[in-house]
């Protein structure tokens, strides 16, 4: 019990660091300043603390954060932050997107804080390396889509005439659109790999590689939305705002698939992304 309290206290500290990073990023854009080092330092501090919290829980329970809603949210906050910090660190010109991405993360952080941190049963079918591969690939997919969502929100805000001056420090919308497209391409590859790894795991665990259970069905629908978005941009030479709208639709579908379906499904494949 004491161990769990320590894990939660460290997690709270991580959440505080993330929230501060978001606030500094938003204030920076509003005031037309570039507090990039502070934002990066706060995000890295949050990530380090959260890594410790997850590591302690993993050590205590003997399995990764794959079972309960609390664990799934926590591990996804961690992977999304890792993906975004990488993008933030490597692509300096898009750092102002933190003012959009971090508030999106606040939703998940808020949900995480009200989720019950109790432990769940780790089924024997989860005891395979394919689980880690499947989940890891899914997290890369969602991370790539999150970066694309941040870029898309900027495009849509500009299109709606919101904060044009304040967002001027970012590259032009066609360039953001191209980068978002590349993120979606990465997302498509990793989502495909996630489906393949999941099929291998399902074949071993339940004796069938595909059974159209709710999570599989929604994961495939998500894949189709990604493929549709990429094809639509190529076939119709979509304008940046339309492409951005489609990317948001992909994110919503993926969000429902990853965080909604596993908890309304009664199939053996309860979801562990």
């Amino acid at each position, binding site marked *: 019990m004491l161990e769990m309290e320590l894990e939660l206290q460290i997690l709270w500290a991580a959440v505080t660091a993330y929230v501060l990073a978001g606030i500094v990023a938003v204030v920076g854009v509003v005031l037309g300043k570039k507090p990039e080092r502070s934002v990066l330092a706060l995000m890295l501090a949050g990530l380090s603390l959260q890594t410790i919290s997850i590591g302690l829980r993993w050590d205590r329970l003997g399995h990764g954060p794959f079972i309960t809603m609390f664990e799934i949210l926590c591990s996804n906050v961690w992977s999304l932050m890792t993906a975004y910090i990488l993008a933030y660190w490597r692509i300096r*010109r898009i750092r102002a997107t933190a003012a959009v991405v971090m508030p999106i993360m606040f939703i998940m952080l808020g949900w995480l804080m009200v989720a019950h941190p109790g432990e769940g*049963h780790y*089924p*024997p*079918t989860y*005891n*395979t390396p394919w689980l880690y591969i499947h989940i890891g690939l899914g997290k890369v997919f969602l991370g790539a889509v999150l970066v694309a969502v941040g870029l898309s929100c900027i495009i849509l805000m500009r299109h709606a005439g919101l904060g044009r001056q304040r967002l001027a420090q970012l*590259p032009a919308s066609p*360039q953001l659109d*191209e*980068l978002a497209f*590349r993120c979606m*391409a*990465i997302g*498509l*590859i990793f989502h*495909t*790999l996630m489906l*393949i790894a999941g099929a*291998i795991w399902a*074949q*071993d*665990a*339940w*004796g*069938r*590689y595909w059974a*159209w259970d*709710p999570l599989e*069905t929604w994961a*495939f*629908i998500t894949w*189709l*939305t990604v*493929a*549709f978005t990429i*094809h*639509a941009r*190529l*076939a*119709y030479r979509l304008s940046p705002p339309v492409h951005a709208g489609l990317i948001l639709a992909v994110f919503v579908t993926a969000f429902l698939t990853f965080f909604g379906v596993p908890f309304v499904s009664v199939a053996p494949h309860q979801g562990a992304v």
Partner: protein
Amino acid sequence: MLSVVKEERAARRAAGARLLRLAASLRLTLALIALLGFGVAFAYLREDARTWPLVVPLILLAFNLLAAVLTNGVFRRQTALLVFHLALIVLLLLVAAGRLSYLTGYVGVTEGVPFDGTLAESQRGPLHAGDIAQVRFVNKGFSIDYAPGLQRGATRNAVAWSEGNGRWHEEMIGDQTPLVLSGYRFYTTFNKGFALTFLWRDAHGNDFLGSVQLPPYPLKEYSQAAAWSPPGSTLSIWVMLDIDEVLLDPAEHTSFRLPERYKLIVRIGDDRHELRPGDSLQTAEGTLEFEGLRNWMGYRVFYDWTLPWLLAACAVAVASLGAHFWLKFSARPWDA
């Protein structure tokens, strides 16, 4: 006259080429992806209509892909993209072949009693060519540990099978590891329980040794009963296992095991009997001897020869798509 025929042929060829280009349209691909999405959603909502909402858009997509590969010059300039689309076509063909020749089924096998090639339930594609009737193996017992709250741990099931030369092999299967015989994959399931073994001697003195599997345990802990008829008999025999001990204590770490304190209630018509191992019962059509209790394990059976080819096609598709994007993106920076 000759020139008119030539013109007609040329017109037909041009019309054909136009049709092929239309079929190859990228916009059609988009519409078909959307159609497949609706098909998936429809099949998900209507369990009884799972085939055509998926098959129709998939066939159309296959034609669209094939037409695009044949007519679109992009594929001749970009090899990786061509390989990706060819791999998608192969994938679709393999899935179709798999659906035509698959088999899925279920069977419960009593410990020590050889599987005789008969499945309790099965579904198979119209072109299934495997011969499950020739498959034989023996369930040699299993162990399952439970954590408090009856949380099931790993299943370890010993199985044995013989090769054509009479040599026997043993293997431990369970959870992630199936038994694979003649392409049929046998997976342990959470269904397992107790089986009553009987010796039935009919009126002509013929002996039959067999087992009656009771409902899964602990899933149906309070309905450990079954009705059956001995071979060649019209008798309807109802049996119930009355267990007089706690086998799986939800408060403790425990393991699946056979009960030690139990009695067997047998009802034939209005007559009620209690049997223990070794007891016999004389009936109007023969003698029933209760030999004792054994375990049974439920196996999910799966056959699909396309599995390794599907994996290979998927690997080629992803690798070529990755290569295509890599070449495309590395040629020009995103902010150029």
